[in-house]
């Protein structure tokens, strides 16, 4: 899984082009080294041939052909892998001295340098075909001198060099690829860690931050930037919430006053107006209940209610909720079924808020389940988690809306106008669960919705 992803990552693609460029660069560099090496070798051979020619010419001028021959003999006595071959001919091309049988037929390859091939006896007595490099020089008396040297050792040196360079390039590329894969794997791990952290934060508590490794570098800068982005998001969200909470708070008192006026008006108004006043009262009550809902959520989210936490038994609370709502289900001929699969589920929490949260979920289930439908409630222990599951026969919620329904005032399109409600019920449930470090999960109950409340025990 992670290996598949390496090849698609930006890092790997970057490393791949890096290796490519590196390969080309190494190739060019090694080719230059090879060319320089060969050039150097050949010019040394050429220098030595020139030197030899100078020496021979000097001996010839002093002692004639005999002097030259003596020098040649002394030179050849010195054991050397690369001995020189000589021939001195007169103006008609007859051999006067030297260890080459005849004047070779050569080809010129520039600047007076000649090349020819000849069989020579190797050290083991076998005849070997060798390539020679040679240069001629005209003596003062019109005789011509040729000094030759075979250069197969240079060629084999160059070949060896070429092989080494080719291997070096291969190793460079292999190391480059391994290094690229390793670097991209390391980077990928770090990026993956950041991704995981960001996902967890977006899903869960927005007040959490990505942990900083302290190793410094670009990744840490990225993490710091992410964190400050989260700070901003949180501040903005808090700001929006604060504004709506402030509005709710500030409007509650005048609204209550209005309600009180309407209430006293209702008692004194003409009978023909009573119904209208009562409708206004109901309207005011609806508004107040929305404001109260908002403020209650804000209060729960503030965490102040933790101060009143005590040990409570979820089983008892669930039974009370079901007892309270059972008549509501019966009025709709619904079958409300409660399965308690555990004795007790003791958690530390706020009894009233837990009751409120469970009641909101059950209330929704009953509200959205058609008449004569089924509402099932299961209470069980799942390891170190207490689970309350409420499934219904209703229309359910499209999966892509699962996150949305916990937002304030959000209502699934289909239910707007059909069912009473202010879109705050599940927001409050979510806030209560968060306060208790629990989780709320939505799922399909085929056909309806399954809400699962999970509390750490």
């Amino acid at each position, binding site marked *: 899984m992670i290996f598949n992803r390496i090849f698609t990552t930006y890092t790997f693609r970057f490393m791949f082009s890096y290796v490519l460029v590196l390969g080309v660069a190494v190739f060019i560099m090694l080719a230059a080294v090879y060319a320089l090496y060969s050039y150097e070798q050949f010019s040394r051979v050429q220098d030595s041939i020139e030197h030899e020619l100078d020496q021979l010419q000097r001996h010839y001028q002093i002692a004639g052909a005999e002097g030259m021959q003596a020098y040649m003999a002394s030179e050849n006595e010195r054991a050397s892998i690369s001995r020189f071959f000589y021939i001195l001919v007169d103006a008609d091309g007859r051999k006067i001295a030297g260890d080459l049988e005849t004047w070779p037929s050569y080809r010129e390859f520039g600047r007076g340098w000649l090349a020819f091939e000849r069989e020579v006896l190797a050290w083991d007595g076998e005849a070997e075909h060798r390539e020679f490099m040679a240069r001629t020089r005209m003596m003062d008396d019109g005789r011509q001198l040729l000094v030759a040297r075979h250069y197969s050792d240079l060629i084999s040196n160059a070949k060896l060099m070429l092989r080494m360079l080719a291997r070096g390039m291969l190793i460079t590329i292999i190391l480059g690829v391994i290094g690229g894969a390793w670097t991209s794997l390391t980077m990928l791990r770090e990026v993956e860690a950041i991704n995981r952290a960001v996902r967890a934060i977006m899903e869960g508590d927005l007040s959490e931050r990505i942990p900083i490794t302290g190793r410094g570098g670009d990744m840490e800068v990225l993490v710091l930037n992410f964190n400050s982005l989260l700070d901003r998001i949180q501040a903005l969200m808090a700001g929006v919430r604060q504004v709506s909470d402030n509005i709710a*708070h500030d409007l*509650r*008192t005048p*609204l*209550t*006053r209005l*309600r*009180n006026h309407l*209430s*006293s008006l*209702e008692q004194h108004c003409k009978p023909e107006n009573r119904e209208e006043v*009562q409708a206004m*009262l*109901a309207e005011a*009550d609806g508004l107040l*209940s929305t404001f*109260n*809902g908002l*403020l*209650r959520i804000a*209060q729960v989210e503030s965490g*102040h*209610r933790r*101060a*009143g936490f005590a040990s409570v038994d979820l089983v008892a609370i669930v039974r*009370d909720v079901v*007892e*309270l*709502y059972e*008549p*509501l289900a019966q*009025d709709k001929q619904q079958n409300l079924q409660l399965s308690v699969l555990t004795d007790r589920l003791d958690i530390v929490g706020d*009894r*009233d*808020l837990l*009751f*409120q949260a469970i*009641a*909101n979920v059950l*209330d929704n289930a009953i*509200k959205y389940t058609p008449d004569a439908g089924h509402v099932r409630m299961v209470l069980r222990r799942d390891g170190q988690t207490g689970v309350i599951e409420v499934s219904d026969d209703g229309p359910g919620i499209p999966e892509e809306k699962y996150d949305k329904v916990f937002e304030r005032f959000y209502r699934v399109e289909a239910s707007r106008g059909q069912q*009473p*409600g202010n879109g705050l*019920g599940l927001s409050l449930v979510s806030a209560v669960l968060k306060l208790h470090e629990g989780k709320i999960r939505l799922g399909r109950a085929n056909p309806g919705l399954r809400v699962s409340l999970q509390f750490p025990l």
Partner: protein
Amino acid sequence: MHILLIEDDDAVATFIEKGLAGHGHSVDRANEGRQGRDMGMGKTHDVLIVDRMLPNLDGLSIISQLRQAGVNTPVLILSALGEVDDRVSGLKAGGDDYLVKPFAFDELLARVEALRRRQESIPRTRLKVADLEMDLLSHKVTRGGQNFNLQPREYRLLEYLMKHAGQVVTRTMLLENVWDYHFDPQTNVIDVHISRLRQKIDKEFEQQLLTTVRGVGYMLQDPADA
């Protein structure tokens, strides 16, 4: 009823005073803690309404000092919203009921009247409203000789209504006292329970005892007393 109102917010105090006076109650006012405590010590009031946040002496301290001095007058605590909604600490300090501001006046009135009744109630073994009778020892409920089979919760609901016969009780009061939860139902689930109870105790009778008070709550009342 003679009521002592300890509240520093003049607008709220005037509003409460006017409302209570409109329902035939007389109101004494104190606008700071110490004065309120001293007036409360006189034991001349039927009910005290005490704001939690007061200058000089806060509401909860007033209540504890009164209780220590042996003053048992029922107390309704008022709490402003935004303060930590700690009903428990309010009730622990000796308060009898708790109401968060802002509130509908009907809610306040219903609670104040319920408090007076609590004070008057002496241990009784029988409750009676018109021809409806409840035996608190045998848990038997009868009307006109007919015996009703009530569920435990229905029994508690009826008991609460009978103890407050002739008074308006709000839905919140029923949730708090009969179900013992302080919460905000999204649906009028209480109405369904009331209508079931009504089915049992009222349906086959000519006189309807359990009536709905629109916009406020319910009242169990002997029509002859109305």
